[in-house]
């Protein structure tokens, strides 16, 4: 075969494939024609919704706080709450606590797991809170402090014989493993 030549149908197949790939890549643009609440993101085809969100000076974040015996408070690291990285844990917590409105379920499932976590040995209670932050104040003062509203609270069982929260088992927890 002359190396300079295309194989039969090779060029046609390449053209079709390229058109399909580019069509698929641009297909998510149609999401912008839908009302915001009906837009659906996907993978690997996305319309990159994080850039369409309106960002205001005040922002709410839902997170978990550990309470010590002396009532002092410590924000819990994402890796203690679940796997998959900070953003995945944050999304999952938001989904359970806000979208599904079950913050207590999250706290109840989290508490026994914190009991088993070495870095949380000093905690007596866990709270799921919604913090409201003034972004300018936080960033300009280099201090991330906001107004917290407690959405749910759960005591951390310290008795080794204490059972895990109802409905929670190691393989299917309401918080990520």
């Amino acid at each position, binding site marked *: 075969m002359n*190396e*300079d030549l*295309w194989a039969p149908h*090779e*060029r046609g197949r*390449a053209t079709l*494939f*390229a058109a399909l*790939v*580019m069509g698929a*890549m*641009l297909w*998510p*643009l149609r999401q912008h024609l839908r009302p915001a609440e009906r837009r659906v*993101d*996907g*993978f*690997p*085809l*996305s*319309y*990159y919704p*994080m*850039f*369409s*969100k*309106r*960002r*205001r000076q005040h*922002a709410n*974040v839902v*997170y978990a706080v550990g309470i010590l015996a002396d009532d002092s408070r410590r*924000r819990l*690291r*994402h*890796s*203690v*709450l*679940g*796997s*998959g990285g*900070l*953003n*995945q844990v*944050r*999304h*999952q917590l938001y*989904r359970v606590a806000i979208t599904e409105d079950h913050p207590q379920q999250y706290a109840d499932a989290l508490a026994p797991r914190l009991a088993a976590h070495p870095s949380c040995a000093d905690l007596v209670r866990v709270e799921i809170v919604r913090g409201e932050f003034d*972004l*300018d104040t*936080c*960033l300009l003062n*280099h201090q*991330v402090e906001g107004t917290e509203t407690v959405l749910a609270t759960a005591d951390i069982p310290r008795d080794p014989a204490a059972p895990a929260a109802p409905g929670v088992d190691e*393989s*299917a*927890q*309401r918080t*990520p*493993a």
Partner: protein
Amino acid sequence: MSSVRRAVSAPAARLGLVRALVGGYTLVYLARRRKMLRKVVRTDPAMFEPVGPVRALRRPVPPPVADALNDATLVTTALFALGAGHRLIGPLHSALLSWTLSYRNSWSMIFHSDNALVVHTLVLGASRAADAVSADALLARRPQPAAHPRYHWPLRLMNASSTAVYLLSGVSKVARADGWSWVRGDSLRRQIAIDGVRKEVFGSHASPTAYALYRHKALFTLFAAGSLILELGAPLSLLGRRFGRLWAVSWFGMHWGIRVIMGIKFRYQMSGVAFAAWFDVERLLELARRTR
């Protein structure tokens, strides 16, 4: 060979080396995340929100099956990088990678940084990307094929798909209700701020650069305008090779800028591999040969 034909041709080694680079990157990326993936697939099934091809599932597959698929992806990644059995491995690897990364993104959070990698792999898997710089070529002991358009279109398509990613990001910014106001930089500045606050409340740390730059509003107008030009003007990068390379270098710089200011790592882009298709990477092979 006519000048037009030359302009739409590429050496097989260029496409082969791009395949090896993308495969090599994927291998390191997945191997370093093997443990994490094993944990992610054991997340509460209630968190399952399938995306991409995984939407075919109503509920997660049993964790051992997910583990096996992850490991199979690692194996095909290695073979893909080596260019072994490419006619079979190429499409199989792109299917498995799409599945594995979609499955990883099916737990209530989509990581958009992997989009380009999946599409690039799909293109490489469907093309003759192992005619050179591959185990297949080595075993066949055939001479290196002449430059041909069949080695050029996959590279162009990879570049076009990268361009689409940036274009879509740019459109998303200006398609909001307040439209072009994104260019003022307030949204970008606040996006960086909220990202920093989230990091702090989840026990990580906001980038020191975010704190340092936050007071300089004009700088964010500059960043926002610059990124919008690079994103909405992305299709222009396909007009000429030099222009394309300039764009690719600018995107590369933009991702490193995001890393410094927001602490967000777009690993594929920051590694430079995402932009390899814009360059005559086969020259690296000649350079290596000469220095040997």
